[in-house]
C-alpha cells in the first residue's frame, strides 16, 4: 500500500565506507511508534550498542520527521535528532525546526541514519534521490552562519543543519543550528557530528507531500485556522514572539538589576532589537527573530534567534551592562555552535568558585567576573579548548571530577545544567521534568497547564488535562499531592506532560505553548488519520507515546542510569539570594516549602504513575509487557 503523509523511506548513510542506501519503513513500526521521535527511538534501540563512546564511530545520529511534516497543518515542521549525547552519556533526543524537516520530507525521506566516521570533513547533500557526501574543506573551520550561507547559496536555499568550531573541536556541550536559527542538539549533538567529520547536512526536495483524505483534512484545517485567526493574543504573539513567554525584565527587576530591566521590556525590544519576524514552514504563530542592533559599538549586527529568551537569559549575567553585549555574546556563541544556556551557567558558576577561592587566576588563567570580556574569553577558550577551557569543554561532569568539593553546588542534572530555577519560578512540571528526563535537565517535555495556562485556576487545569488526553482515571491522583495545600501533584502530572510532548514530537508538531495550545490528543489524531489514511484512536497515539518514553528509559538503564540519577540539585533546598529577597523552593501555588522528603515523595509518585519500580526507576515487567517492549528490556545482573 502506498503510504500517505509518510514517504516510507529511510536513508542510511555510512560515513566510514561512503555507502548510501535506502530502505522502506516498517508498517508495524509506524503503528507502534508513529514517527519522528517515536521511530527515531526504535531505530536507536536497534542500532546503538550499550556503553559505546558517544564520540566514536560506533555512535549513530538519527534524524526523523513525523508524518504531518511537509503539509500545511499549522506548526508541523519539527525535526528530531536522536543519538548518544556526550554531555550526559544518555541516549536521547533533541528537536529543532525551521525548514530542514520540511525539505527532508519533500526530498522523500522520513528518517536519516548516519553512522561511522568520514576520513576527512564532509557534508551530506540530499537533493531528492541525488545523495552525496561532499568534501567540506571550504567550510570546515568556518562558523555556522558562514557555513549555512555558503551551502544555501550553492544549493538553492536548501535546509541546513550545520555545526560550528565548537562541534568540530568536540566540545561536549556543542550543538548544531538549523538554518542558522533553530538550536538543535543541546547536550552535544554538535560534537557527535564533529566526531564523524560531518560539518553539515543540506537538503532540498521537490517531490511534495500528498495526503489520504483531503475532504476530512479540509474540514479539520479550516476549523483550526479559524480558531487561530480568532485567537485574541495572536497579534501580540506576532509582535512580541517569545518576549511574551518569560518575563526576563521582571526577573532582572526582582534580582535588583533595575537599569538593565529597562532594556528588557517590550518597547526596547520593538524599537531597538527586532528587525523581522520569521516563521517555520506552516506556522501561523511565528516566534523566531531576526535581531539587529541599532546602536552601540556593535551597531548593525544581525542575529537570527530561535528564542529571544536565550540572549535575554545571558543578559542576567550581572556584570553585563548593555543588552547589546548580550546579543553580541550570544551571536558568537551561535556562530561557534555553543549552547548559550550552558555558557551563561558556566560563567556564573566559575565566578562563584572564584569568589570562594576554589578557582584562582593561577589555576585558570582568568580573573573571573560575569562581564563581557570574561564572557568572550570563556567562549574562546571553550570553543578552541585552550588552557582551562579544555576542561570546561569536557562538560560539568569532568569539572566536578577535577574539583570534587563543588558537585553539590552545581545546578545540573545528569551532567546538563538546569534551565528553569524553581526557587524563582516555583515547582511546575517543567522544573520537575529537569530532574526526571532521561537526557538530563530538559524542560520542553514537561510542558503542561502549569505553563500553558500560567496564572492557572483548577478549572483551566481541567480543560488542559482533557486536551492533553489525560485519562479520567488519573485526575484524582493528579489532585492528590503529598500535602493537601499543594493542590496538584506535579510528579504525577509530569508523566502526562511527557506523553503529550511525545505525541506532538512523533507526529511532527511544534510543542511551543502558543502552537501546542491549539491541539489536543483528539484533534491531533484526527489530523493524523486524515493525512495518513490510518484509523488510529487517540488512545493508540497516547500509548505509542508512552511506549516511546519507556523505551528511552530502558535504553538509558542499559547505559547505567537509575533512580540515583534523577536527583534534585542539592542547592535547590538552600535559600537563594535574589536581589533583596531570599527565595525558597516552593510548590507551584506557593503554599509550602519543598523539602527533600516532599521531593522524594514526588519522585515516588512520578514512578508510580509511570508504572516504574520506585526503588530502581526501571519500568516494571508488567509495564514492559503491556507496551510490548520485551525485546528491549533491561536485565539487571
Amino acid at each position, binding site marked *: 500500500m502506498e503510504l500517505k503523509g509518510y514517504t516510507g523511506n529511510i536513508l542510511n548513510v555510512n560515513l566510514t565506507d561512503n555507502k548510501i542506501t535506502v530502505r522502506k519503513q516498517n508498517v508495524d513500526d509506524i503503528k507502534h511508534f508513529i514517527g519522528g521521535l517515536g521511530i527515531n527511538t526504535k531505530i536507536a534501540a536497534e542500532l546503538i550498542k550499550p556503553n559505546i563512546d558517544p564520540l566514536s564511530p560506533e555512535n549513530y545520529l538519527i534524524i526523523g520527521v513525523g508524518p504531518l511534516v511537509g503539509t500545511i497543518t499549522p506548526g508541523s515542521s519539527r525535526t528530531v535528532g536522536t543519538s548518544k549525547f556526550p554531555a550526559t552519556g544518555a541516549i536521547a533526543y533533541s528537536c529543532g525546526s525551521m525548514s530542514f524537516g520540511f525539505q527532508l520530507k519533500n526530498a522523500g525521506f522520513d528518517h536519516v541514519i548516519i553512522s561511522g566516521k568520514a576520513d576527512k570533513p564532509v557534508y551530506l547533500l540530499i537533493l531528492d534521490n541525488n545523495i552525496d557526501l561532499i568534501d567540506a574543506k571550504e567550510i570546515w573551520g568556518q562558523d555556522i552562519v558562514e557555513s549555512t550561507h555558503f551551502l544555501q547559496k550553492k544549493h538553492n536555499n536548501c535546509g541546513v543543519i550545520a555545526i560550528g568550531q565548537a562541534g568540530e573541536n568536540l566540545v561536549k556541550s556543542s550543538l548544531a543550528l538549523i538554518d542558522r536559527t533553530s538550536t538543535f542538539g543541546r547536550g552535544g549533538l554538535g560534537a557527535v557530528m564533529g566526531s564523524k567529520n560531518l560539518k553539515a547536512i543540506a537538503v532540498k526536495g521537490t517531490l511534495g507531500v500528498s495526503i489520504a483524505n483531503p475532504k476530512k483534512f479540509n474540514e479539520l484545517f479550516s476549523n483550526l485556522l479559524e480558531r487561530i485567526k480568532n485567537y485574541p493574543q495572536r497579534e501580540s504573539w506576532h509582535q512580541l514572539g517569545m518576549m511574551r513567554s518569560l518575563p526576563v525584565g521582571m526577573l532582572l527587576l526582582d534580582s535588583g538589576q533595575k537599569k538593565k530591566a529597562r532594556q528588557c521590556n517590550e518597547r526596547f525590544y520593538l524599537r531597538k532589537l527586532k528587525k523581522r519576524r520569521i516563521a517555520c*514552514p506552516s506556522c501561523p504563530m511565528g516566534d523566531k527573530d531576526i535581531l539587529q542592533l541599532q546602536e552601540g559599538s556593535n551597531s548593525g549586527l544581525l542575529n537570527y534567534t530561535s528564542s529571544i529568551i536565550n540572549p535575554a537569559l545571558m543578559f542576567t549575567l550581572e556584570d553585563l551592562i548593555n543588552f547589546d553585549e548580550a546579543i553580541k555574546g550570544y551571536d558568537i556563541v551561535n556562530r561557534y555552535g555553543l549552547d548559550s544556556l550552558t555558557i551563561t551557567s558556566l560563567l556564573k558558576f566559575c565566578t562563584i568558585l572564584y569568589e570562594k577561592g576554589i578557582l584562582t587566576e593561577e589555576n585558570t588563567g582568568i580573573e573571573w567576573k560575569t562581564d563581557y570580556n570574561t564572557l568572550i574569553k570563556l567562549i574562546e577558550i571553550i570553543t578552541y579548548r585552550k588552557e582551562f577551557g579544555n576542561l570546561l569543554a569536557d562538560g560539568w561532569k569532568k569539572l566536578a571530577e577535577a574539583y570534587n568539593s563543588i558537585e553539590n553546588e552545581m545546578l545540573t542534572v545528569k551532567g546538563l545544567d538546569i534551565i528553569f530555577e524553581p526557587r524563582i519560578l516555583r515547582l511546575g512540571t517543567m522544573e520537575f521534568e529537569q530532574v526526571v528526563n532521561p537526557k538530563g535537565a530538559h524542560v520542553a517535555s514537561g510542558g503542561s497547564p502549569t505553563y500553558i495556562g500560567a496564572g492557572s485556576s483548577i478549572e483551566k487545569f481541567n480543560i488542559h488535562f482533557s486536551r492533553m488526553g489525560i485519562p479520567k482515571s488519573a485526575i484524582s491522583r493528579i489532585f492528590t499531592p503529598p500535602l493537601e495545600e499543594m493542590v496538584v501533584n506535579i510528579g504525577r502530572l509530569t508523566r502526562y506532560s511527557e506523553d503529550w510532548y511525545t505525541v506532538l514530537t512523533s507526529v511532527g508538531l511544534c510543542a511551543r505553548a502558543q502552537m501546542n495550545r491549539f491541539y489536543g490528543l483528539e484533534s491531533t489524531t484526527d489530523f493524523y488519520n486524515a493525512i495518513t489514511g490510518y484509523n488510529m484512536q487517540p488512545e493508540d497515539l497516547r500509548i505509542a507515546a508512552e511506549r516511546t518514553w519507556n523505551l528511552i528509559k530502558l535504553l538509558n538503564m542499559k547505559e547505567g542510569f537509575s533512580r540515583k540519577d534523577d536527583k534534585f540539585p542539592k542547592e535547590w533546598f538552600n535559600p537563594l539570594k535574589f536581589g533583596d529577597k531570599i527565595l525558597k523552593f516552593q510548590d507551584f501555588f506557593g503554599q509550602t516549602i519543598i523539602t527533600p522528603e516532599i521531593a522524594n515523595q514526588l519522585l515516588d509518585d512520578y514512578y508510580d504513575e509511570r508504572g516504574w519500580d520506585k526503588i530502581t526507576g526501571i519500568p516494571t515487567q508488567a509495564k514492559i509487557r503491556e507496551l510490548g517492549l520485551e525485546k528491549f528490556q533491561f536485565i539487571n545482573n
Partner: protein
Amino acid sequence: MVKESIINILIDEERCTGCILCKLWCSYIHHKIFNPLKANLEIKDRYGLAPKIIFLDTCIKCGQCVQHCLYGALRLKEEDN
C-alpha cells in the same frame, strides 16, 4: 511599503515571515499536493532581510492564498478600507 498587486490583493512584504502558508495552500488547492514549487506565487529570500512576494504568470487570481496569510503580508484591498 505596501504594493498593489493583481486585482484586489495588496502586498506588504515587511510583514512576511516566510511561513509559506500561502504557497502550500495554493499548491494544494490547485494541484492536490503540498508542494511550494507548484504554487503560483513566489516568496524570494523568505528568511532574508527583505523578502519579495511575486505572483507568477500562472496565477489565476483566485485569492485563496490571501485567506491563508495570517501575518497581513497579503491582504484583500477591501480589508484595508
